[in-house]
Structure formats: C-alpha cells, structure tokens
C-alpha cells in the first residue's frame, strides 16, 4: 500500500497517513512519501503499536515504511 503526501499542508499528511493505517492489513506495509521528516508522527505510531523505517531520498523528501509492530 502506498500514499504520497508531498505538497499537502499540515495537518493533511498526518490525517492521510492515519486514515491509511486504519485499513492496513496485518501483514502489509504502508509506504509513505513525504516532503519532510514528520517527528510528531513517531510518537503517535509508537503509541498505536506500529514500527517504521525512514529513508532520506536524494530529492530531499523521505520514504517511510510502516508496519504493525509484532
């Protein structure tokens, strides 16, 4: 599952990511493309039982892979 939240004003990236997570199947990964590192999102992911991995891309944006924590 993939979403691109680049160029959306706050809080739309946050809302879109949380809505996508609500429909994320148990074994699936949500791939998020975002224009900045979303520090406040990490607290919410941690508290909601998700694990994530972030990669910085050459164009200055970020790719986040989010899965259900085991």
């Amino acid at each position: 599952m993939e979403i691109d939240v680049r160029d959306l004003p706050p809080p739309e990236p946050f809302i879109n990511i949380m809505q996508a997570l609500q429909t994320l199947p148990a074994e699936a990964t949500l791939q998020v493309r975002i224009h900045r590192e979303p520090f406040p999102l990490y607290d919410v992911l941690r508290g909601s039982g998700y694990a994530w991995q972030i990669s910085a891309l050459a164009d200055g944006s970020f790719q986040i892979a989010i899965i259900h924590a085991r």
Partner: protein
Amino acid sequence: MTIASLSTDQSPPISFPFSFFALAPLFLVLATVMLALGEGNPFAETRTHAMLAATHCITLGFMTSVMFGAMQQILPVLVGSRMPAGRLVARLSLLTLLVGVLALCAGFILEQPTLLKLAWPLLGISFLIFISASLVSLARATARNDTWAALLLSLISLALTVTLGVLQARGYATGATLPYLELATAHIKFSLGGWVLLLIVGVSYQVVPMFQLTPSYPKWLTAVLAPALFAVLLSSAVLLLMEPYPHWIAVVTECLFWLLAASYATVTLKLQQQRRRRVPDATLSFFRLGMIALLLAALFSLIALFCPTTETYLRTLSVLVFLIGFALSAANGMLYKIIPFLIWFHLFRGGMKAGVPNMKQIIPEAWMWWHYRLQLGTLLAAICAPFWIVAAWAVMLGVLLQGLLLTTAVFTAIAVYRKNVRRIILAQA
C-alpha cells in the same frame, strides 16, 4: 493555566505553550499603557523612559512569551527533541518572566532603582532556566540541520542579550559607573538582530515551506545566513569594546548585517510567490508584511549611515518598523498558524475515533483578516509616528487593539479545545 490533556506521550502537554500564549498579548496592552504615560510624543526617540518600558513590554513580554511557548512545541517538531523537565521549566520561567517584566517596566516608567533591583535577578533566573533547557534539548536533537544551527545561535544571542541587559539594570540600580551607551548598543544588536531575527529565520526554514507550500529555502542561503548574521553581530559588538576604531569598519559591518537580513526577506518573498496553492491566507499575508517591513527597516538603517542630518529619525524609524512591522507580524502569523494546529493535533491524538473539528474552525479566518488589516494600519501609522502625534496615538490604539484581539483569539481556541475534550471523554466513556 489548567487545561485538561488528552494524551500522555512524548509531546509536551498543551497547557505549557498555551500558558505563554495567553499571557503574551496582555503585554501589548501594557505596552500601550506605558506609551500613554510618557510625555509628548513617545516615538520621537527610542531612549525615553516610556519608550524603554514599552519596548521591553513588546520584546521581553510579548515576543519572549510567544517564543518561550513556541519553542517548547517547535523543538520536538522541527528537531525531534523535547525540553527536559517541561512542567518545571514552563512554570518557573513563566512566573519569573511575568514578575520580572512588570518590575522592569515599572522601574523604567517610575524611575525607581528598587524595582530594577527586583527585576534583574528574576529575569536572569527566567532566562537561565529557559536557555539551559533549550540548549539541553538542542544537544539531544536527532536532526542537526540549518534550523538547529539558527536556533542555537539565536539562543546564544539571547544569553548575550540577557547578560548585557542584567549588567545595565544592575548598574542603574546600584549607581555603578559602566559604559552604558556601548552596553545598550550591543544589547539592542543581540536582542533584535540576534535573538529575534535568528529565531524567525530558523523557524522560517521549516514553517514557510511546510505551512505555506513554497519550495524549500535554497541551500546556499540556509547554510550561510544564520552563521554570517551572528558573526557580523559579534564583530560589531567586539568593535564597541575597541573604541576608537575607524568609522568605515562600523559602516561595513552594519551594511553587511542589513544586506544579509534583506536577502532573507527577498528570498522569502520570492518563495511565497512560487507557492503551490495560490489561495488567500491571512497567516501568509502576515509573514509577507513582516518581510516587507524587514526590507524597510534595512532601507532606513542604510540611508541613516549616509545621511547624518536625519540619522536619529531614520534609526528610530528602523527600530519601530523592525519591531512593529517585522517582529510583530511574524509573531502574529506564527501564532495564528500554530494555535489552531496545536489544538487540532492534541484533539486528534486523543479523540481520533470520536471526530475532531476542522483546523480552520478553531479561529475564524475572518478574524485573522481583521487582525491583519489592523497590523497593516499600525505599521503605516508607526512610519509617521516619530514626527506626527496623531499617528503616535494611532500606533498606541493599534497595539492595544491587537493585544485584545489576540487575547480573544487565544481564549476562543482554548474554549474550543475544552468543549471538544469534554465531548471526546463522554464519547469514550
């Protein structure tokens, strides 16, 4: 202030920044009282007692309260690190700042050394607590980017400003012989050019592209601007200690400072022109007005360097336009963006399933536009205030109304938060 919180995770409770945001506008009201108590036209020059008291109400009272509150939220969001001992830092720094500013302003306006003796230790403690906590937060930050560097230099400038201010306040209170003119000049440079400008610059690098949907600031600017501004400020302060020095060196350092500040304003205006969503936005207009005012302040100061006959007027104008046009506009623009966002964010985390209000419903947009028009009117009046008493009274009225508007906006947002917290708690019961 007690505001129930919905979340217990790593972000600071909402009451920390909102205690500062609720207090800040009251200092604008107090600044008007200080100006009204002055004799004649308080804007005719910057060193009258009324102007000193009003300036400190705006810089120490309003700007510092906004920035103390904002920094507690900005640090976790922009550099991924929260302040240590948040509750203790917020309460102690707020209380000592409030009493310290009141004592300092009363000391200036009443010419009472006893009040200055009370003010400087309180303000010293307030800033020591806040700066130490912010520096610990920056040391622990996971993101060491250009914003991080600008915030660090801004905090160092604040520490220097406070040290110079405390030295002067203590000196006046005890009657000590000190080079007051040089200390005051360095104090103004580090407070306005360092603390205020560098903080707004550092926050802009993230907030302008994020909220105004512009391209990012160019790397050549963000990598160089904050260190260069700080280096120029430090050089000009060192020059003050080495008097007498050739006049042309002072001219060169001041030109450099204003050219750097103007390049920041020009790039920001250009980025705003390239924004991806071209819809009217009051907070963007506040920021744009702030940048135009910064260019005007630069222009007045640069002309003053080469026109000795009108230097005093032009320098007074530059300070007025910097404070009322640039700093106040940027702070208002930031507050109208950050307050609805924080309310929305805290409600969303606590009550995602119960539904939360749209961010745009928290403070009505029409309200922000009225405030923007008032800000524009206050700035235009400020440009005429040093030589026209009617304009001076218009500035006082403008600052007073801005304080009242902002107070109402903050408490409207708090009421929305409280109402929704009650609804979410009931829905979850």
